[in-house]
């Protein structure tokens, strides 16, 4: 009990009177985390956009005029039972025309030129199950579909899907790379900040050791300080980022981080603070040696 109280007191004494340097350290850690958090927010939002983009990937089956609506719907049922197909939506000739006008108003004069006699072809819009966006699987499926009775052209974005997939892949690689760089640099920054501030107080560690403090008593206040610094710093960083995110919301609509990521960032802060003071203490705690000390 007394030991625990003494430890907490040591921790407080370590902090006392160093307000400006504590603030500086916290600011530093917070700002590091602002950078990291901003990166996470951007990553999260890009992911969301890409996910919805990939969900839109699908196959468009144009039907021949010979197929009436009834057989078309029967065909839709057949297709929707196939592997990799999530849902099938029937677009009649009339709906196709309405869609075309809505999507491309500047080309709608084309339809006027066609007159009432000619309609756009009806189609089945096939959406895919997750994981079926790969070029290979789609084109196989499209081949199968095109061999079905009453099916004309089968279109599946062969001109933009490879590009999209390449961009998604590159972004994921970039993201992992940048994330690794950031986690590493945040950890190093927090660790070095702690290291510098521990080594400023190596005299305290030395004298406490001389007075018979156990290893644990020497380390605990600094480790506790490191954890607190890392945690508070990452919390401060999250707060700053949240405020900036809210201010930005009007200009660029986006989501803030989900709760799980926020907890992860707080944990990362505490862990890096802990590691930092641990590394700092390694050089600050003197041990008796048989060889002379190098200073």
């Amino acid at each position, binding site marked *: 009990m007394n030991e625990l109280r003494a430890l907490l007191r040591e921790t407080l*004494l370590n902090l006392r009177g160093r307000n400006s340097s504590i603030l500086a350290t916290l600011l530093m850690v917070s700002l590091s985390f602002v950078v990291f958090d901003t990166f996470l927010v951007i990553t999260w939002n890009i992911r969301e956009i890409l996910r919805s983009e990939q969900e839109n990937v699908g196959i468009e089956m144009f039907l021949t005029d010979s197929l009436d609506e009834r057989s078309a719907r029967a065909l839709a049922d057949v297709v929707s039972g196939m592997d990799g197909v999530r849902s099938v939506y029937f677009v009649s000739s009339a709906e196709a025309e309405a869609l075309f006008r809505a999507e491309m108003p500047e080309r709608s004069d084309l339809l006027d030129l066609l007159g009432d006699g000619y309609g756009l072809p009806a189609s089945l819009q096939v959406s895919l199950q997750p994981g079926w966006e790969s070029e290979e699987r789609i084109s196989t499926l499209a081949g199968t579909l095109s061999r079905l009775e009453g099916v004309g052209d089968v279109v599946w974005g062969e001109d933009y899907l490879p590009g999209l997939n390449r961009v998604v892949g590159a972004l994921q690689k970039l993201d992992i790379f940048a994330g690794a760089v950031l986690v590493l640099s945040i950890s190093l920054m927090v660790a070095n900040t702690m290291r510098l501030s521990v080594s400023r107080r190596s005299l305290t560690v030395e004298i406490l050791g*001389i007075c*018979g403090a*156990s290893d644990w008593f020497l380390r605990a206040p600094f480790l506790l300080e490191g954890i607190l610094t890392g945690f508070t710093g990452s919390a401060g960083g999250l707060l700053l980022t949240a405020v900036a995110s809210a201010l930005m919301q009007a200009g660029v609509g986006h989501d803030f981080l989900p709760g799980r990521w926020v907890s992860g960032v707080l944990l990362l802060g505490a862990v890096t603070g802990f590691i930092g003071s641990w590394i700092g203490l390694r050089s600050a705690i003197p041990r*008796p*040696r*048989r060889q002379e000390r190098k200073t």
Partner: protein
Amino acid sequence: MSDALVKFTGVARSYSDWPAVEGIDFEVRSGEFVVLSGPSGAGKTTILRLVWMGDLPTAGRVEVCGCSSDRLRPGDVAGTRRRIGIVFQDFRLLPDRTVFDNVALPLIVSGSSPAQVRKRVFSLLAEMELSHRRASFPHELSGGEQQRVAVARALVAHPEIVLADEPTGNLDPESSRLVVDLLLGIVRGGTAVMMATHDPRQVPPESARFLFLERGRLVNPAEWPEAR
């Protein structure tokens, strides 16, 4: 194991092959006052450092309070130091703590209750004529006052051995007598004291055992030019 608190057996400590001390054999028992004397650079501080395990011998064995330099287990060093009080030649006070906090360190480190700490520290500061300075920081003290704080810190936890390295080096004759009397008092209480000094005349010859060092070796008092 003998009942000696401190036992040196053929101890040497070299720095880059140059021996600071060599072939040292001696014992210290409870209630003994041992005065280590010798010229500057003779090895007095080195021997004290070996006792409090600030250093390990390069040859021979140092045993302190039942703990041997041969086989140190984790925690041994801290445990031994709690049974030792040390006054350093350069004081080693914590610059960012008050006199009270500095003196209280050994008690706090070993887990005494705040009430115990307060009682013991106040009474010791009074004895050392430092009460009025208890809220000062070391840099606000004169050299002699710092030295008295260092002595108080060494005595506060009722140690079994007190090591004192020139505890009177910065003191006027009157304060020096105060410190020596204090050390003699605790020796009478059964505590062992090892004091390094370049001026052995400060200690009454009948109440102490004198060890003379020269160039890292213990010499016969008869060979010591300034020995009384």
